[in-house]
């Protein structure tokens, strides 16, 4: 099974999807496949063979909401042995704007959920079985 994983990784140009994905979700609506982040955008990319048999693949530059991203992937015997960012965004005003609203406000020890005027609860994953006892179920009931 490991082979399948490495197959994917060695045959597909590795983009920094972690950063780039957001853009593609926005256009996913309406087409079942959506815009695949695997589709290779126009841009320079290439590979080189080293004497040790390692193959270095330079991915295309991908424009993300954080700025341009490009990585270099080393493949040895079909397995990725190294991924090095060539270009990496260092943050921009959009991040600042989002985070500016997003700092957690610590609650008083005695504060109960009912008195906090909240819309949704984030916590360790609630399963559907555990949902009945959860705060979120209480919130949903209030609104239904």
């Amino acid at each position: 099974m490991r082979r399948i994983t490495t197959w994917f990784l060695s045959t597909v140009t590795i983009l920094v999807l972690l950063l780039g994905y957001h853009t593609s979700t926005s256009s996913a609506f309406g087409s079942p496949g959506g815009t695949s982040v695997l589709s290779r955008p126009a841009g320079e990319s290439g590979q080189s063979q080293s004497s040790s048999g390692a193959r270095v693949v330079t991915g295309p530059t991908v424009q993300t909401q954080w700025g341009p991203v490009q990585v270099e992937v080393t493949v040895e015997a079909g397995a990725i042995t190294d991924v090095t960012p060539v270009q990496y965004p260092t943050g921009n005003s959009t991040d600042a704007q989002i985070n500016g609203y997003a700092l957690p406000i610590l609650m008083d020890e005695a504060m109960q959920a009912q008195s906090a005027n909240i819309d949704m609860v984030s916590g360790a994953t609630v399963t559907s079985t555990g949902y009945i006892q959860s705060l979120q179920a209480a919130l949903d009931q209030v609104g239904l």
Partner: protein
Amino acid sequence: MSVDTAHQQLAAAGTSRYVDHCMGIPISLAIRGRHARSRMGRTAWDDTIAELRRLDSIFSTYRKSSVISRLERAEIGPDDCPDEVAEIFELAALAKLETNAAFDIWRPRDDGVRHLDPSGVVKGWAIERASAPLRFLDDTAFCLSGGGDMVCRTPSTDAPAWRIGIEHPHDPSRLIAVVPLQNGAVATSGTVHRGEHLVDARSGRPVVGVASVTVVAASLTVADIDATSAYVMGADASRWLSDRPGITGFVVWADGSTTTTGDGQKSIS
């Protein structure tokens, strides 16, 4: 219509809620504004759920008929998989790399054998993706949560923020913090509801030292993966989070103390 009027109408319209179950987790939608009760809003919610069911049929490790289950049994090859599978494998590869392999979708189970379980990558990504129909609703704010990880949207900057309560990892009936959020995503990793299901993939052992990790980011794909990754880093969780660009991290330690990383206000100044 002036901005003020829009704001007042939003607030007056109140919040509608929808709940369904998919991927073994409850999916909750809070929605306010023009389409909170409209037929169009209802259709968008139905489309969101339909997309989650479709993604579940690909990635469920509980369904023997899912693409991922058939792939693990080698009944099908990579060529037979939809594009989304390669996408998830790439996200997982990055997370593994960035956590020095503490996060891995190949994890040893009790039998000592490594099994494929991409759910740590799939959940946030799937919810974010499935929220697309809701984003098309004009003058409408929504917060879509799947089992405690959520995407928030508001139509304008002066509309009221969604208030996200962060559950206390030691007592799920209490909150430890509140995150007011207009646009962005919140994900929390911890073990309170499912027992010790999060393990360090290198050892296969449960993580110690950290009780929960919450990440606020622009994208739920990022927030979910980073929260899970930081959690499995254990005592290194906050140090790891502070190196991540563009996110706010909130760690609750086993002793109940907390650490916040990535102060967004600093990057504004």
